[in-house]
């Protein structure tokens, strides 16, 4: 198996920035290296030079590379207890506002956005909510827009949903057809999908809740801090930021202006 070395990885990062303006220099090297090795293997390159020249000369291949090296593993109601806290503690507070804006940053194929829409619907808040869902990868956004997921996943999602405090029959939210589950358009009506790069794009609205779960783990500490400042700039006062179960704002510029919600990976912007 072809493996790239540290120097080659830096060459790729520099070339990609020069040719396409995409900046991967703040990405975690350990993870990025694995992803590039995986790409070399998947696309059958014999060496690094072959990959590099294809990336340079074929913009379509570069796009494919971005799609493959960003991690797009997600599921509905991942970490059910997190969703239980959203359902019982966070959304009821945000729900007192006349209008609710939520941002899913790094939404991948959208499973978390649909999970959120289901929570909002059950709390009778969906009609006054808008869910902005963004990702660096245009391909996954197309999947997310359609709201069609593999039927074989529904058993696990249904279990997650119930563990998160869901009381309905989960199958009531989708129509099964040819091995796929298509989620009700009533859920997606309140979603706005667009491409957004956390590295280079700025704030675009003010939100009551921002979810960015298991995205910052692919960044180094400096880029994590930069993204957290972007979230701070994009949150209304008393708004909430939710991260993945092993992520934290501790030691970041935000730690003094945010208050952690009990022991959850949810922080409230207090000043």
């Amino acid at each position, binding site marked *: 198996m072809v493996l790239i070395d540290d120097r080659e990885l830096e060459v790729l990062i520099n070339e990609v920035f020069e040719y396409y303006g995409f900046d991967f220099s703040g990405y975690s090297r350990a993870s990025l290296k694995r992803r590039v090795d995986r790409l070399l293997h998947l696309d059958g390159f014999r060496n690094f030079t072959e990959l590099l020249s294809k990336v340079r000369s074929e913009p379509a291949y570069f796009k494919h590379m971005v799609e493959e090296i960003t991690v797009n593993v997600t599921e509905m109601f991942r970490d059910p207890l997190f969703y239980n806290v959203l359902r019982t503690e966070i959304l009821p507070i945000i729900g007192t506002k006349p209008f609710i804006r939520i941002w899913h940053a790094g939404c991948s194929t959208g499973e978390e956005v649909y999970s959120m829409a289901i929570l909002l619907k059950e709390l009778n808040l969906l009609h006054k909510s808008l869910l902005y869902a963004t990702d660096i990868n245009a391909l996954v956004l197309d999947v997310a827009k359609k709201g069609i997921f593999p039927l074989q996943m529904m058993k696990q999602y249904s279990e997650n949903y119930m563990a998160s405090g869901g009381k309905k029959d989960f199958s009531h939210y989708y129509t099964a057809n040819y091995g796929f589950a298509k989620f009700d358009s009533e859920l997606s009506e309140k979603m706005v999908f667009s491409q957004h790069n956390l590295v280079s794009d700025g704030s675009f609205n003010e939100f009551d809740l921002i979810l960015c779960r*298991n995205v910052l783990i692919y960044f180094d500490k400096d880029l994590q801090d930069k993204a957290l400042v972007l979230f701070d700039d994009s949150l209304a006062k008393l708004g909430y930021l939710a991260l993945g179960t*092993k992520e934290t704002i501790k030691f970041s510029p935000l730690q003094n202006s945010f208050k952690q919600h009990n022991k959850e990976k949810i922080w409230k912007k207090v000043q």
Partner: protein
Amino acid sequence: MEKSPIISGCKVVIIGGSAGSLDVLLKLLPRLTVATFAIVLVVHRKSSEDSTLEELIAIKTSIPVKEVEDKIALLPGNIYIAPSDYHLLFEKNDQLSLDTSEKVNYSRPSIDVSFESAADVYGPALVAVLLSGANADGTQGLQAIKAAGGIVVVQDPETAEMPFMPRNAIENLTADYILGINDLYEFISTINI
């Protein structure tokens, strides 16, 4: 044990295991009182399980068990356990990174993923131990560690509750040591001494 190892300059001891490995760890870790290196455990575990493994290990050892969060510093003298449903990776600046990408060998955390990443960063300063298990995870990682100049130790399959994993490793690479549980303790306790 056939030969008495003299291993110095070890920064990290990484131990991988699956079914039947927890028992070995619970026999091994309580007897280790100090470590001049970091100990990293990558054990296959249920994705729903949260921190019970950490708690179980922590009450059995006097070596501090650090809660692994993304980008925490990897320091000698501590135990780090790969959290459930994440791959555990190593950065060149001695930080740990987490990753939720696809399962490898049906596993997340995968032993191969962590072993390969540790080999890349620590090379000859790495000692890896592969314990009992019923799947092929770990073998490829041990090969990477050997290639990078690290020390490869495999639990003697005869002493493993599930011999498949250590046996698969032995069949596919030349382990530096093949040890039973007692010898494993002796081995680790003489590292850097």
